[in-house]
């Protein structure tokens, strides 16, 4: 990777964060039942993102891993204001985008793109591949001629190995396999050549051969063009390979965050350790299906008191129920939230 790092364009100051998130909160209010309305008290809500702070430097890839349903997608969408957070700051390139009006936000949209997690839900089934990928170009009035538009769509499709592009351009989503739809979602995000991409499980349906190509593409874009990524994934092995840093989420909070290698090779938080121990081995001679962290996943409406992991944590002690651990730096930017880390 040493060679790739030296390719970073001159002028990109990699010490300045491109994105700084401060105490971001996104709750989904629930409709209240009659009984609880009569009783009063606070409105119940799904606390999907519950106070998250981090920074991503220009050209870095920040990996986000964590439990299914812990708030990763909600956070990713909030970063682009596709869902409105209740609190916090999202400072992108020096501007708090939560303070911008829709008009002020529009030019920024060109620089910030998202690869949606579910290619089955996120695509209009009535548009063909060409229209789906060209749509962001049209919304931003970026192309001057049809030929130019076609050319840019072709290029984006080729980048994600949908080749020959003309074979796929005029197909509809239902005429594509799961992994092909996923690659269309990536092409749509790339077509604007953004500075910042939230990639929400962009390769979960791809086999290793195509996955490798796309992850290497992300790596190349980040190191050569200074594109910054928030890469949400369940795949710790590839996260370790391509990310500069990894953040681990549990129930709406970061429980650990630090340099990718440090998080994977010397995890500090019990939840991170459990995640790593559950990674399956690709060896039929070594069965490794085991239950780590028993107990039902608590819901994000009434998260447990104190440390949110305490009902499932093998190391929990009385203080864990009472006091919420803060995310503290244990050196080298490796942060963890656990009383006993």
């Amino acid at each position: 990777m040493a060679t790739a790092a030296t390719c970073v364009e001159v002028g990109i100051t990699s010490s300045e964060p491109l994105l700084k998130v401060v105490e971001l909160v996104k709750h989904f209010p629930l409709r209240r039942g009659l009984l609880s309305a009569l009783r009063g008290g606070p409105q119940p809500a799904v606390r999907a993102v519950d106070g998250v702070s981090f920074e991503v430097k220009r050209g870095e890839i920040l990996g986000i891993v964590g439990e299914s349903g812990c708030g990763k997608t909600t956070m990713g969408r909030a970063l682009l204001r596709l869902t409105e957070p209740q609190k916090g700051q999202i400072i992108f390139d020096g501007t708090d985008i939560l303070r911008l009006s829709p008009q002020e936000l529009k030019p920024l949209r060109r620089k910030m793109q998202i690869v949606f997690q579910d290619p089955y839900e996120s695509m209009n089934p009535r548009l063909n591949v060409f229209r789906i990928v060209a749509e962001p170009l049209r919304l931003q009035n970026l192309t001057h001629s049809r030929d130019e538009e076609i050319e840019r769509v072709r290029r984006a499709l080729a980048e994600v190995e949908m080749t020959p592009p003309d074979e796929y351009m005029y197909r509809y989503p239902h005429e594509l396999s799961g992994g092909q739809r996923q690659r269309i979602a990536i092409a749509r995000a790339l077509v604007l050549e953004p500075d910042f991409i939230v990639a929400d499980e962009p390769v979960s349906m791809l086999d290793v051969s195509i996955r490798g190509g796309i992850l290497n593409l992300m790596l190349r874009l980040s190191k050569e063009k200074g594109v910054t990524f928030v890469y949400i994934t369940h795949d710790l092995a590839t996260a370790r390979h391509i990310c500069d840093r990894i953040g681990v989420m549990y129930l709406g909070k970061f429980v650990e965050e630090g340099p990718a290698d440090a998080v994977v090779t010397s995890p500090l938080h019990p939840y991170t350790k459990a995640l790593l121990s559950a990674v399956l081995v690709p060896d039929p001679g070594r069965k490794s299906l085991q239950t780590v962290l028993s107990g039902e996943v608590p819901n994000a409406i009434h998260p447990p008191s104190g440390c949110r992991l305490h009902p499932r944590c093998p190391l929990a002690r009385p203080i864990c129920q009472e006091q919420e651990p803060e995310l503290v730096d244990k050196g080298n930017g490796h942060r963890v939230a656990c009383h006993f880390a």
Partner: protein
Amino acid sequence: MAFFEVKELTMYYRTLRGQVKAVDGVSFAIEKGKALGIAGESGCGKSSMATTLLRLLPNNGQIMGGQVLMDGQSLLDMPEEQFRRRIRWKRISMIFQGAMNALNPVHRVGHQIMEAILTHEDVSPTEARRRAEDLLNMVGINPKRFDDFPHEFSGGMKQRVVIAMALACNPDLVIADEPTTALDVIVQAQVLKAIDDLRQRLGLSMIMITHDLSVIAQMCDDVAIMYAGRIVEHGSAVDVYSQPLHPYTAGLVRAFPNIAAGRSTIRSIPGSPPNLIDPPTGCRFHPRCPLADGRCRAEEPAFQVVAGRHAVACHKADVLAGGVDIWQQRQLA
């Protein structure tokens, strides 16, 4: 005779640009109670093969030939009415790719399972409800949550509901298409364990479609590797993983990311997936194969048993049997 047999199954999609040869002469067999894993590149025809077995093809999908036999009974030429009443969902069911997002958001989860029972069997609603509760219990969800809506469930729980629906009519064979791709590794292990326990307990046979070789390693007895609409290698998981004989399989096994390995470039298999409207001549893998020669470009290799149950379609299987790392140089390049 195997419990479930597929012979030379061929299914093409008609499109404006020509026929997409998604399933092109696929053969395999499964013994009762065994699990077969099917792996292969995105778009190589795995889901198409599954929907062909269940006869749930879109309008432009056309079965061109081949046979599917269950207990010796031929399924493809059975009248649709009979297939629907006796086979689909009752004897063969499926967990669809992306299904947990397809749960109806405005219906309670328990009712959706009940519905699956009521549409396929002639039972009273009370009986269906009792069975739906049992099924929830079986997949590890408290039946008290019968009246919850899908959005009140976590991803892992929704996936377990989908599994419960596939088991609703006590099938003999379950086809699971990427059942855990959307889940974190801890929940994935829980869901796989639930499937595995049920399989053992109920004596189910299973086809597990996934791109994740580690899932197959943990769940399946046998594995078949698909490339461009065809099966290129088949054998016990232990044999195929430890001694892949097809260059594509060898590339897959080699490129599988390993969390224990240090930071390095991600390995992949160079080249692009083939065009299924106009697949390469001879061996379909030849444009990407480091061993390809004139014969590979001209002549399609036959699918042949090499040892025991281990079979492969490659002119040069003996090169890999000799243990040569054919991908080494490509990777350095």
